[in-house]
């Protein structure tokens, strides 16, 4: 077992009720498995929010992206990506500006 810190933004923060948490999970685990775990934990609203789409750079894209230890994993396109013990995963929507 390992621990993985997950942080949430925007609507995900409101759905989970927290800005971040540390989860005890078998590591390494794939992004797919992490998402499955979180959907089981937080339900349909969480899953629905994570699957929201937008038009970005003229293409359809998921609204939320994953950053693992600061590095971006193209949103939900690389669900085999492995997350290791003590990694930090941030789920951030495609917001930019000021």
């Amino acid at each position, binding site marked *: 077992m390992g621990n993985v810190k997950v*942080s*949430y*933004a*925007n*609507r995900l*923060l*409101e759905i989970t009720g*927290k*800005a*971040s948490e540390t989860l005890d999970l078998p590591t390494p685990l794939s992004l797919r498995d992490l998402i499955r775990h979180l959907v089981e934990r937080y339900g349909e609203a969480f899953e629905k929010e994570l699957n*929201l*789409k*937008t*038009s*970005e*750079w*003229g*293409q359809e*894209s998921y*609204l939320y*992206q994953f*950053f693992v*230890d*600061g*590095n*971006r994993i*193209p949103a939900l*396109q690389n669900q085999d990506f492995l997350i290791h013990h003590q990694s*930090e995963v*941030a*789920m*951030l*929507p*495609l*917001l*930019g*500006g*000021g």
Partner: protein
Amino acid sequence: MLVIDLSKGKWEFEKIPKKWTRDFLGGRGINSKLLFDSVPKGVNPLEPDNTLIIGSGLLTGTVVPASSRFTISAKSPLTGGLGDANSGGFFGPEMCFAGLDHLLFRGKSSNPVYIFIQDERVEIRDASPFWGRTVREADALIKKELGTDEVQILLIGPAGENLSPIASVMNNLSRAAARGGVAAVMGSKNIKAIAVKGSKGTFVRDKDRTFALFKEIRDSLDADSWFRMFSRAGTTGLTENYNGLGVMPIRNFQEGHLREIAPLSSGEFLRHFAKKRKSCFHCPIQCSHYYSVGTEWSEEGLEYESIGALGPRCGNFDFATILKANALCNRFGLDTIGAGDAIGFLMECHQRGLVSKKDADGLDLSWGNRETILKLLQKIAFREGIGDLLAEGSAKAAERIGGGAEKLAMHVKGQAIIAADPRGLKAWGLGYAVSSRGACHLRALPVAEYSATPEIAKKLWGTESAADRFAHLGKGKLVRWCEDMRVLSDALGLCRFFTRTTFLFPEQLAKLIPYGFPMEFTPAELIASGERINNLERLFNIREGKSRKDDTLPERFLTESLAEGPSKGNLVDLEPMLDEYYEAREWDRESGYPLLATLHRLGLQKEMGSLKQYKTGHLHGKR
């Protein structure tokens, strides 16, 4: 265009040449052309020879959605180069309804005045009863004097009257044209306000097709979850994002990541403070809010930049204090970014023993002191005590403090850096360094760095690493491309949250223009206009002595990495990015001057010919 000579108390209407519309579109584009032609080298920005220009975009006030924006331009007292500020609200559209695209002020009035414009009727009226009043007070009093609420007013508060280069011009009470020191220029001319009322309507090409277009755009916005999210929380949602990226400006950029962000989150704002959403002219996004703190503070806003500047930058993590500080900035007419930067800078000076409590009129300068933050805003606006130093902005304050304070001032060319740390966003750092108005994220707004796919990055900017926020390669091309696209929003008068990434492309904009303006442009013409405006602004700055040596970043970002958080361990390696940017721009690598061939291609020979830097011929053929 209405040209007002304040020294003589006279005005006249002039036509903007059609060629300028073709070459520079409108708004910021034509503003920059007017500025270049009207302000010779070496003018003191706060003297009468500076020109103040207010320009609405080509599509401002038209049927095109999100067409509220206008730009105010002048030579900047902050940077000594080109200065401008852009705002939404309702003032720009009302100018258009009055038949005006541009207002240009020369000279200086001998006493405080406000200008009232109602279609062709122009009056220069005494503003002495309103001088010294806050934005809210003056707005209400002017409306009372004019006998109507149906007038849009652009005005300065005490900060602009006191010539603070970090003052803001306000309209609609809370919409701010805050950057570049343009409010100080307005104050230097003794202009308290400009009140406009128009009855001329707007151009509509084909009513049925126009309504069909509205529906198509509205349907696409409603279906797009990004717009729904943004409508709900506005830019307050960026707080969690930037914290998640580890690029928050905590304690003057000493740290980048908060372990617990919930107290400053958009959810916190929406749950406890926001009352109702608010929109600019003709905008379906409605990203702003009315908010209140208890029963005493009711205000409008709130942008992420204000949260960042008045919150973490000053070591303050109390949302209520941020909201009160934002309200004070609106009322005093202060740039929240500049003010937060100045206060955060002062607090770090205190931390490092450069400034004492005694130096600061007995104020407790420990990080996050809520009372101190609110008191300092008043002192800055009225130039009282230590406020007189801070009112100049952190760059000039640092020069006066000395002893190493210069390294603590987070600015480029005198303008404060915004609340996103470039050590975690390399293209943003490059954008700050090369922006024509000093540190600015909006010139380029290279969100592609963390939102584009590697495939898009390779296609548009030549390398997948352009979409890697930690990489340096590809950022020169990315920033150049973004600047040439983003300037079109300013020239057309459209909000960047509408153009964002899909309507950013010239192909989309070219389809929109004919609905709001009786002229058509090809995408290629729009791209050329974007490049032309950016090069013209560069020429203005070159004439004022700027060059590559000024395209830099604070030392902190180049030499000190963040110790913790998602962006830890990173530094900005600026020089290779600058090299790539200049090459992408077809500018000389050594000096940062546009090459002769570039200026010829863009039709800027006349402007180039007026600069001594181009008389020696050493830029022929050089890259």
